[in-house]
């Protein structure tokens, strides 16, 4: 049955940035989007990697020199975090899609776990590469 039209104006408006208050699920939603856009913008780097290999040793060595400079390592560190964060966030979204982990404390634990997980995995990866030597 249709409601009287005067109730329409009282309905909650669509939430937007200025209406939300901070919480973990919101922060990780934004982080998921930002990390996704970073991965998106990084595709040219992947193409450049393949292009330098196809082009020859001289070009590839120049890319290697750039990649192993402090600038290159900083970019790769940030990019690896973006990829890992987006991946962990993707797993969380698939868990949520099944209907699990959406309860009151659970959804905030999952959101916090996304950040902790992505930071821990990125740290482990780089400790392994730079110190552990694998």
């Amino acid at each position: 049955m249709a409601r009287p039209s005067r109730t329409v104006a009282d309905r909650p408006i669509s939430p937007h940035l200025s209406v939300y208050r901070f919480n973990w699920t919101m922060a990780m939603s934004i982080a998921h989007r930002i990390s996704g856009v970073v991965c998106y913008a990084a595709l040219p780097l992947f193409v450049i990697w393949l292009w330098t290999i196809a082009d020859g040793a001289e070009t590839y060595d120049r890319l290697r020199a750039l990649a192993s400079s402090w600038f290159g390592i900083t970019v790769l560190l940030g990019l690896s975090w973006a990829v890992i964060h987006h991946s962990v966030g993707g797993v969380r979204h698939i868990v949520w899609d099944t209907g699990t982990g959406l309860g009151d404390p659970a959804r905030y634990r999952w959101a916090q776990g996304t950040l902790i997980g992505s930071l821990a995995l990125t740290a482990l990866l780089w400790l392994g590469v730079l110190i552990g030597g694998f």
Partner: protein
Amino acid sequence: MVARTPYARARGLGAAGTGTREYWILKLTSVAMLPLMIFLGGVLIALRDASHSEVASALSKPWIALPLFLLILANALHMRLGMAQVIDDYVHSNGLKKFAVGANLFFSYGLSAAALYFLILIGLRG
């Protein structure tokens, strides 16, 4: 006159108006990319001190080239659909939206085609 509430008219219409198929492709490609991305990370780490000829010969091996090929394909669909959501959410002017949708397609598929081209080129040279 049709007796429909504003809610009934708005129901099912997100920013994009449609999207079950896009949602499903986004999920499938994300599941596919999880192992493939780990594979790419492993390849990059394994080859980080390798010479150009070692890298080229590794990338021309089918068991390395094929997962990378699949990764490029899955990623092309995933990045286009992901950016489409961002465009749906933030770009509201009709002209700018058309431009953004087109630019997204060219960027995602154009660069993915370039990646596939170079991967095949490396493979054919052995």
